[in-house]
């Protein structure tokens, strides 16, 4: 009897803890990844969404005028809408340090000194294909410089592949982590 009692008392100690079960640990790791990814992606999409209010500018004597202020590391407004054939005037100022204002496809590249407005007038080519064109800072302005970008919408663009690229990249990176888990699990066995 005492022998049996001893066995009964030892039984719980010998039971394998749930923390030592690999599927459980994998599930925790996956949940952590999913929670963080959802949070990060949702936050970024909210920010991008709030900036994506396309501004059509003000018509002054037939010229579509955009007053844009640039500051670390953003343009305000960050989204412009124009039509092919429009005559546009960009009046750009920097509210803090030196910045640039460039749109590749229009050949525009303004160098901005703090608090000094720079203006350039141009015609959007009639044959400019519909699409979203990037406007960006062309003078190095610190660690956030790569993110200092805005968009110029021309016409009515269709589906853009770039919109789904972050999702594809997320899926690929998740796939890479999964591959490491599968290979690691196999080797652990």
């Amino acid at each position, binding site marked *: 009897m005492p022998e049996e009692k001893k066995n009964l008392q030892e039984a719980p100690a010998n039971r394998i803890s749930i923390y030592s079960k690999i599927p459980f*640990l994998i599930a925790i790791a996956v949940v952590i990844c999913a929670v963080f990814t959802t949070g990060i992606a949702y936050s970024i999409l909210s920010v991008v969404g709030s900036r994506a209010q396309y501004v059509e500018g003000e018509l002054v004597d037939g010229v579509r005028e955009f007053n844009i202020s640039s500051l*670390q590391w953003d343009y305000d407004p960050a989204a412009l809408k124009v039509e092919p054939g429009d005559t546009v005037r960009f009046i750009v100022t920097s509210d803090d340090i030196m910045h640039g204002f460039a749109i590749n496809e229009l050949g525009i590249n303004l*160098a901005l000194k703090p608090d000094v407005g720079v203006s350039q007038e141009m015609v959007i080519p009639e044959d400019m294909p519909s699409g979203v064109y990037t406007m960006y800072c062309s003078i190095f302005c610190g*660690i956030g410089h790569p993110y200092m970008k805005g968009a110029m919408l021309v016409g009515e663009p269709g589906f853009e592949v770039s919109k789904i690229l972050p999702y594809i990249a*997320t899926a690929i990176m998740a796939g890479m982590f999964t591959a490491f888990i599968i290979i690691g699990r196999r080797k652990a066995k």
Partner: protein
Amino acid sequence: MKWHKKLTTDLREFGIIKRLTDLNSFQFILILPTMLIFILATVTIVFGVQHAGFNWGMVFTWVVWWGMLIALFVIFGRGWCIMCPFGALGEWVQRLSLWWKSKWGIGLNLKYPKRLKNLWMAIVFFVIFIFLDSGYGISNSPPLTAGLLVVLTVGAIWVGLIFEKRTFCLYHCPLTAFIGIASMMAPFEVRRKDADVCRQCKTKACFNGSENTYGCPMNVFQGSGVDKNRDCILCTECVTSCPYNNIKMRFRPFGYDLWNRKKGKLDESVGSIVIAGAVTIVSLFLVLFLTPVRSAVSSILFSGTNPGDWVRIISIGFLFLGGIAVTLLLMYGFSYLSKRFSGVKDIKAKAFFVNFGYALVPLGIMKFLADILDHVLRTWGAVFDVTRALAKDFPLDRVYASELTVRQLVNPAWTYVMQLLLTGIGFGFSLYVAYKLSQRMFADRNIAFKAFLPIGASVFVVGMAALWALSAAL
């Protein structure tokens, strides 16, 4: 031996490389052009057009030099240091010679305090440098860039006059932690060939120097079996000094030092996490929170005059330091989870933190490269415009370029794809390093796998921060 074998065995098997690296003046030959270019850059920055976009020195420094520097890390590690004019100036003044062995020197040659022989000070200088650049715009202002060049020059000479060898390059240069840690990932190394030859060597000329050479300026003793690139500036002084031709230079697998070094160090681990945090979590924080934080701070503080605008500087500083702190805490938290998952009780969470911090090196470096790639591709055209302007008023550069060409080599959409690709490669490689580090820490594959899971998750989280911050542009 076939040429591709020579690449991975010993580059000195190529006759021309052997002849060059046998020269005492090899390093001087590399330094001379960069020294001349930096003198020109300094002249134009001081006397030229006071505009970051039109000044040749500014464009050269922050587009060509900064871009080349980071690209060079990935292949040659401390490849820049061999031609860096600042470290060379300190060395020349200390030795009173350019390359020849001089009998006299004016340096005190004091030993550097042992307690300071680590990366802590260098990490602090790196953080200050990046913060000052973001807050005050060093790269954006000719006077501040000139100030930085003066500080680096005076610092290198001053430290060179007091302490032995290249103490400034080892512990004080604001880029040394960054370059040193990045060099551990580079697929290039200088190492001894045969350990027995070193054991029997009496002179230790690679370290102490010889009649005609100085020995390693970075206090790296090849004879002891160097296990990482961190301090090696590839100056080939050991190659020239070794009387037995027992030093080799060769290409090797990427990231070899990250899991093959002898022992992890807390300063290196923290440095690795800080570097990765600065371009991932900090970037994410700046994208997400800079506008609301600036609004919040402006309700408390009056704005000053740019660039000394307190609202902006405090907001950026808060997010910058906050982002780095969060990255460190995040990694510590995941290290603690790794300890719990592994089930090991006699190893502290700190040991996991020290071991696994290195895993973020590839992700951090590749994200840095992705960011700088975007900038270089955007502004490349300006290099030609400002060079043409410089030619009209050489060397003072007081003529504005008639235009700054928009000559992006690759359009923004493809640049973005390339950035994603670089970030993805860094992420995959970081996962691989984390996996190797877990196997190095635990011989038992089962425990190693369990320890890997949370660290893999942490790499994933930091990778997501990098990816989605890149994707924040409209």
